[in-house]
């Protein structure tokens, strides 16, 4: 098929379909539209991936459309600022609106040919966005029905929800295809709009408050973007990304990259811009699944990945790595003390994005490989985790992990998938751990003496990461003796399609990690990055270490099977726990206390609330994060 048509399909169809959903606010129409769009999106992105990179010049009409829509968008942000009397939003919108007008009509910038350059990185990103994004939208079909049922709404507001969800996918695809900084900026602003609208979807007070936080934080990134536009136009007379990347590094070029990196950090919620992603958890879960895994936050990562090659061996690169590492450490500790399920996932997202950022900042071929591996596997695992959490929250009606005790008994299928998804975040032989392993290899082999600090941060952070996942995982497996099932685990088709697909992806991609590295990740490295990873039948060899792949997978399966076999063979009577002999005869969950009164056993997970306070830690982290962010702009001088 013609590649131009494929681009049009991946970028154009989602917004149009979204518009269709907006007009036809009816369940069946929505299902048909979303189903077809997903098929088209996944199909066309796969075909596009297959056909390889290209340069493409869209019709001139699109340039005018982009300009018009951009101005409308900025005016809408300004209006929002006035509507909610939010001085930050007003200021930041004005800071963008007038410079953009100046840029367009006085400087006559934005002359870029070709407007669209698709390289392997764009294709990989588009694949992630289209597949995971579509699966999340399919999932949302069921979720939003249940969600609105719980909220007892009169009249459905799902039309606007699906409009923005689909628009986000189109915008993200547009973002990764653009070669003009201005177009990139335009799509960037659309994703900001979508995140703002989706976070405030429920319209509660807290939702509106958090959506405004998300808006202004992302607008900060927009302002940095505008600054980058101006630097490009005024000093180098170009805003074409391919040309900017070829400029020889000097402080002004680095200033441009620093602005872009800064913008990227606002999107990928690095400290001190972590708050918006945390606040986004008030939104319906599909929004989080989409924002945190496949789409929104990956825009930031994409931008840093894009600008990384010229930054190798610069102080700027090192500062980027430092921000990532710092975010990874702090978010791990924050997650340790977090009780809300989605909160833990949000911190985990922020932390993993930090890890990816760190890898990009180190900027060796090996670390770039690590970044891409982490990106791919993080998107899948985190997407699946959010989907599971959404199902559980709708059933259990609680977001606290302490209320999820014994979920394995109550919702066996969902929690089994969830446990595997959790294990895939931090244990071998899954892809995320391979990414982390390559990252440590890359760090130690990068010959920065200063990378010692980052190594230390990563090592401590990864210990804390294991702890909060194991803690949560253990909670799900508690098998209460009186565990009643939460009704039948009725699974509607949108749920099963989306969750099983992602589950399948985790397992197959994890098992076929060598092929994935070989076919997808290594070709995506920038041109002059020669990664010395060699893949043999049994292991992934980075030159400094080797990761055994298939043997561990096979052993894991054998171990689980033989464990099951032993358990079946030896069997055993399930006995109530040891309670110093004070067990109650017919109630295994209680013990006799004072005056023979029956007390229920309560156990709690490990939190470190006496040792440190999350609010204080965030305050401190904000200050340190801001200092490192400032370092970013000082670093351009070296």
């Amino acid at each position, binding site marked *: 098929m013609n590649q131009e048509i494929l681009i049009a399909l991946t970028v154009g169809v989602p917004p149009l379909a979204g518009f269709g959903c907006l007009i036809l606010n009816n369940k069946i129409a929505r299902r048909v539209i979303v189903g077809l769009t997903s098929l088209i999106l996944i199909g066309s992105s796969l075909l596009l991936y297959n056909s390889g990179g290209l340069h493409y010049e869209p019709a001139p009409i699109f340039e005018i459309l982009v300009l018009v829509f951009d101005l409308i968008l900025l005016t809408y942000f300004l209006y929002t600022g006035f509507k909610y009397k939010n001085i930050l939003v007003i200021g930041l919108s004005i800071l963008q609106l007038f410079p953009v007008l100046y840029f367009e009509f006085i400087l006559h910038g934005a002359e870029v040919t070709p407007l669209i350059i698709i390289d392997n990185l764009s294709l990989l990103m588009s694949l992630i966005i289209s597949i995971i994004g579509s699966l999340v939208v399919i999932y949302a079909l069921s979720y939003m029905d249940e969600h609105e049922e719980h909220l007892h709404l009169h009249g459905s507001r799902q039309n606007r929800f699906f409009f923005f969800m689909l628009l986000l996918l189109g915008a993200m695809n547009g973002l990764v295809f653009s070669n003009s900084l201005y177009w990139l900026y335009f799509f960037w602003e659309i994703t900001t709009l979508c995140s703002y609208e989706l976070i405030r979807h429920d319209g509660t007070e807290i939702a509106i408050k958090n959506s405004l936080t998300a808006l202004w934080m992302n607008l900060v990134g927009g302002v940095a973007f505008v600054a980058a536009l101006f630097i490009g136009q005024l000093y180098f007379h170009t805003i074409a990304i391919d040309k900017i990347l070829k400029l020889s590094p000097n402080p002004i070029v680095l200033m441009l990259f620093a602005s872009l990196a800064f913008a990227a950090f606002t999107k990928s919620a690095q400290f001190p811009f972590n708050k918006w992603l945390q606040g986004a958890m008030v939104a319906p879960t599909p929004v989080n699944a989409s924002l945190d895994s496949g789409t929104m936050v990956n825009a930031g990562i994409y931008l840093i990945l894009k600008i990384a090659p010229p930054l190798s061996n610069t102080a700027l690169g090192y500062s980027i790595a430092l921000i990532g590492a710092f975010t990874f450490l702090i978010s791990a500790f924050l997650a340790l003390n977090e009780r809300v399920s989605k909160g833990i996932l949000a911190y985990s997202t922020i932390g993993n994005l930090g890890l990816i950022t760190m890898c990009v900042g180190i900027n060796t071929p090996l670390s770039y490989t690590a970044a891409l591996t982490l990106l791919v596997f993080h998107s899948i695992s985190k997407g699946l985790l959010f989907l599971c959490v959404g199902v559980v929250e709708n059933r259990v009606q609680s977001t606290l992990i302490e209320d999820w005790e014994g979920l394995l008994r109550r919702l066996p299928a969902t929690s089994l998938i969830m446990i595997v998804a959790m294990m895939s975040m931090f244990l071998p032989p899954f892809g995320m751990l391979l990414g982390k392993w390559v990252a440590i290899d890359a760090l130690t082999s990068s010959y920065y003496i200063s990378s010692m600090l980052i190594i*230390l941060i990563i090592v401590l952070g990864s210990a804390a990461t294991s702890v909060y996942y194991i803690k949560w995982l253990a*909670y799900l497996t508690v098998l209460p003796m009186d565990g009643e099932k939460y009704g039948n685990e009725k699974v509607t088709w949108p749920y099963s399609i989306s969750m099983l697909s992602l589950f399948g992806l985790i397992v197959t991609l994890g098992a076929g990690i060598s092929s994935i590295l070989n076919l997808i990740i290594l070709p995506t490295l920038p041109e002059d990055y020669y990664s010395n990873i060699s893949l043999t039948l049994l292991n992934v060899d980075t030159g400094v270490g080797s990761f055994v792949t298939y043997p561990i997978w096979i052993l894991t399966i054998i171990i689980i099977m*033989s464990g099951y076999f032993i358990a079946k063979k030896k069997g055993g009577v399930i006995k109530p726990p040891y309670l110093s002999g004070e067990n109650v005869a017919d109630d295994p969950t209680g013990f006799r206390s004072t005056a023979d009164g029956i007390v229920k056993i309560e156990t709690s997970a490990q939190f470190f609330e006496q040792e440190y306070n999350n609010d204080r830690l965030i305050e401190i982290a904000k200050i340190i994060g801001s200092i490192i962010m400032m370092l970013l702009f000082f670093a351009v001088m070296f």
Partner: protein
Amino acid sequence: MAENNILNIVLPVILVLFAPILGGFIMGIDRKLTARMQSRMGPPLIQPFYDVIKLWGKQPFISSSIQPILAFGYFAFSLTSFALLAFGQDLLLIIFTVAIADLCLIVASLNSKSPYSVLGGKRELISMMSYEPILLLMAISIYYVTGSFMVQRILSLNYPLLTYLPLVFLALIPVLIIDLKKSPYDVSASAHAHQELVRGVFTEFSGYTLALVELGHWTKIVLMLSLVTLFWATPIIIGIFLALILFFVVLVIDNVYPRLNWKSMLKTTWSVGVLLIIANIVGLISRVVMRI
């Protein structure tokens, strides 16, 4: 050459098969030595094997239906991780695989609704959090000396690692103490804390599940001691001697010191342990710089 290849495969396989047995003897030595330090006779050397065989034959009681699978997982993944070591694989991968074994034990203890077991499980979690960074940093500092994470490389060195990494070696002492569950860091399952912990993380295991957990524990100890032997890998006999000395030091510490709480465990490993390793790495780097 062919003979050499066969030896390269057969020897690790034999090592893996005998690792749990070796671990049993090490536990026997532990009990015997501890008894001698307390001026007792102590049990026979093969006492741990009697215990495990007896446990295997007891009436099976379990706390939940997935407990046996997890208990087996603890053993099997410890053994997997030792196998990776025996085949000269990546140190980081070995450490990450031990994490699966730990996960199995912790989840098995946390998933019974037993207060003592949960308390032990939580503390085991913190133990894991305490020693994992030290082990990872150990692997990284070994990398700085040898330029590789592979155990194979260490086995082919013609100089001992200990001369380059003396402080890292010291930092392994708390790791060994935590893993052997010895004082002062026997917070998760103390042999001397019946009143508060009962059997800590092992409370809800009984019969064959406890036997499996014991086997896993032995294997893990062999693994940790093997990591110590890497510090003087050529000839390996000195490394083994070194490991035994360290083991003896741990036993002396166990008999001299009372139990500390988990906070001091975490603080010590994360401050003293990490600082020792960093000081060592800084020393390494300055040595290289001085030579230039």
